């Protein structure tokens, strides 16, 4: 479905994740963060940039991997993006919801 974020129409799925990463920009990310009551800081953006880089390289993301990435430890990751940090951060980053395989 289409949604207007930061003044531009973007495609999102029923849970609000962007379905086309090319439509993402920092203004879109900032607005998605606001929806999650998060005020972005340079530290937040560092993490977002890391997630986007992993996504582009087809690396599946998990809390464990992020904790071992050297970019951020799990404790800080939770402080930056409270409650469900990987899901919240993925949404802000404009990448798909992380899948936990079964």
């Amino acid at each position, binding site marked *: 479905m289409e949604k207007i974020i930061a003044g531009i129409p973007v495609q999102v799925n029923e849970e609000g994740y962007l379905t086309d990463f090319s439509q993402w920009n920092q203004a879109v990310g900032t607005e998605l963060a606001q929806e999650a009551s998060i005020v972005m800081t340079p530290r937040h953006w560092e993490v977002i940039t890391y997630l986007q880089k992993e996504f582009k390289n087809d690396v599946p993301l998990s809390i*464990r991997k992020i904790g071992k990435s050297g970019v951020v430890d799990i404790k800080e990751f*939770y402080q930056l993006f409270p409650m469900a940090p990987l899901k919240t951060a993925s949404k802000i980053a404009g990448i798909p919801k992380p899948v936990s395989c*079964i």
Partner: protein
Amino acid sequence: MKRIIILGSGTAGTMMANHLHHRLNSGEWEIDIIDERKEHYYQPGYLFLPFDIYDPEDIVKPIKDFIPKGVNLINETIERIVPQENYVSMISGDHLSYDILIVATGCKIAPEETEGMQGAEWQKSVFDFYTFEGALALRNKLRDWEGGKMVVHITEMPIKCPVAPLEFAFLADSYFKHRNMRHQVELTFVTPLSGAFTKPKATAALEHLLEEKHIKIESDFAIERIDNEQKTIVDYGGRTVPFDLLVTVPTNKGDEVIARSGMGDDLNYVPTHKATLQSKNWPNIFVLGDASDIPASKAGSVAHFEAEILTDNILHYIAGEPLKEEFDGHANCFVETGNGKALLIDFNYTHEPVEGTFPFPGIGPLRLLKESRINHMGKLAFRWIYWNMLLKGTHIPFVSATMSESGKQFD
């Protein structure tokens, strides 16, 4: 004489030994299977052992009873695989070279990954049921437990048999009801996922059952540590859940031998092509069952379907033919829901579990994603099928290695 070595004689390795024994020319190929243990454990039985539904002797049998004559069973610990030079070295110092290697070393719990898990309360009020010892210790605990807060908990994904923790919670509800003490037990299900399961339709069905059985769910819980003094589990966000009895599924990891051999990812799973089951790094190494990193369930049914396809692929590989890209992630799992009922789910990489009938479209007799008694009979009958058909590589009638889409209600 050429040699094929199978590492591990669990569900996956034993099935491969049986398949290959039937299909390979014994004058040309020697088949060896290596395992450090002497007993084969029926792992689905670990779910029933704590509730006194199965006895230990129902679920443990000698490995050698299931390995065909003509296959060499080697009872040794593997020290290292050296894929660059095509050999395996044992702790005893022996080397064994191979033409083809099949890795079926499985996965197991790693409670040491979580701070405090193996602390003062381990096997006092903190238990696992993913090992024979853990399930048995939990049975003994439950026999005289007087009630309180029981927390059923998943540490992180992926885990072996991802529905087992839910089944445990359902069976616990049923067990306490039968003992007339359900009112003395507060049951909570704690998961790192956002809901009861990963796939939407099954999540809805399973969450409905949790509610019906008055089992509370705490989702999105990523455990940081267990506080043994306060008897709480604490997540990275600072959220705590108190327990009197914690039944946890610790982090699951592939075998240490994979790490020692430098062949795995950060959880010791071997990178594997998901449709052919060939290792991504070495063409003469194949991986099946829980040892691989493919995005399918870590479950016996998956290993069974993989074994049928992998056997064909090994024959193709030997003949120098292209491999079949056929494995679709097919899984078929009974989910015990307590009170003598179960539901059945059938799914693959691309199709989530939905409602329908199985295995005969429109007829059943098994119902998909709906509770029924006959599904429960199916689950109990499965133990006989496992020991007598599955391990021997006998094809299960009417159930194909790839998932069938007929008889299912897709949107």
